[in-house]
């Protein structure tokens, strides 16, 4: 791996700090608040999601126009574009069931631990179990599909 800029890790940490403070302040780190949103008792969470997307949207639109590459990595400024396939719908639906049952998503779970909610370790542990299960299945299925072509 190439040497990283000395400010790379500090900047990641500062970004995470602001991100986590915001999740605490918005109370999206509280599963109850997310569940109250999903059951239409408090629509305030819309402002968290769209507020954050608007702020990041400005950067995604402006940065590629004023600079070619990022100062700490030399990477080109690009939008976050992922290819569309069935997995986006299947994975999105499975995530939706989990989010609707628990009221917690990954970033909010980390922040929830930070506001003192040790009970959220159940959710974080579950997320690791789930991420491992899908990784195990997909490692197996890609090994199977790669096997015939690499037989020699």
């Amino acid at each position, binding site marked *: 791996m190439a040497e990283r800029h000395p400010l790379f*890790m500090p*900047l990641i*940490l500062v970004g995470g*700090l*602001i*991100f*986590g*403070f*915001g*999740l*605490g302040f918005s*109370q*999206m780190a509280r*599963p109850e608040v997310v569940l109250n949103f*999903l*059951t239409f008792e408090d*629509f*305030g969470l819309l*402002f*968290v*999601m*769209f507020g*954050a997307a608007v*702020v*990041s*949207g400005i950067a995604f639109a402006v*940065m590629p126009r004023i600079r070619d590459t990022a100062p*700490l990595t030399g990477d080109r*400024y690009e939008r*976050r574009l*992922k*290819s*569309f396939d069935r997995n*986006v*719908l*299947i*994975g*999105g*639906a*499975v*995530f*939706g*069931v989990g*989010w*609707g*049952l*628990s009221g917690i998503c*990954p*970033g909010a779970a*980390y*922040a929830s631990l930070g*506001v003192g909610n040790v009970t*959220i370790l*159940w959710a974080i542990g*579950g*997320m*690791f179990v789930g991420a491992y*299960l899908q*990784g195990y299945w997909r*490692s197996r299925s890609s090994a199977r599909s790669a096997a015939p072509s690499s037989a020699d």
Partner: protein
Amino acid sequence: MPDPLVAQAAAELFPNGISRYAVGGLLVGLGAVVIYVGTGIPAGASTFLESTLSYVSDQSRFQRYVGSRDWRVVFTLGIVLGAAVFAATVQSGVITTSLYEPGTTGQTYELAGVTLWLTDVQPWRLFVGGVLVGIGTRIGKGCTSGHGVCGVGSASKTSLVGVATFLAVAIGTAQLVAALGVSP
């Protein structure tokens, strides 16, 4: 429309006001922007799950994240610490602002002069939901931050469809669970 009706509608849709949500959302966006401007990386929170598993598992799926796993740990620690700073300041009442509405959810407890918070949501819901979140976000190519903040901010069609899917299914699930009388 007369003002009292507007105020009444706002109070019903937004019983905790909107300022804590809007300020929090702006900060979440700002955190993602700081990282993007400096590094060009559109950060998401769920990749941390797989990238961290690459430290302890040889499964081929996780190896693609070996190159980013160290900074993803730092990003996640930053999120935990940022929320802890919030707990030590605003949640503890050391910093007071009319923009923050504390609300009445969950329980608070004191530790070393800091007001901390605990959820009332049952552990089985958190665990089973967490497993599904872990599977779904990784198969679906993103979570609320990757698809919801960076993807929607990029006007990515994939992310817009992803967000519409998990939001609609989550609403249906939460309503069903509530209708079945599961609380909290």
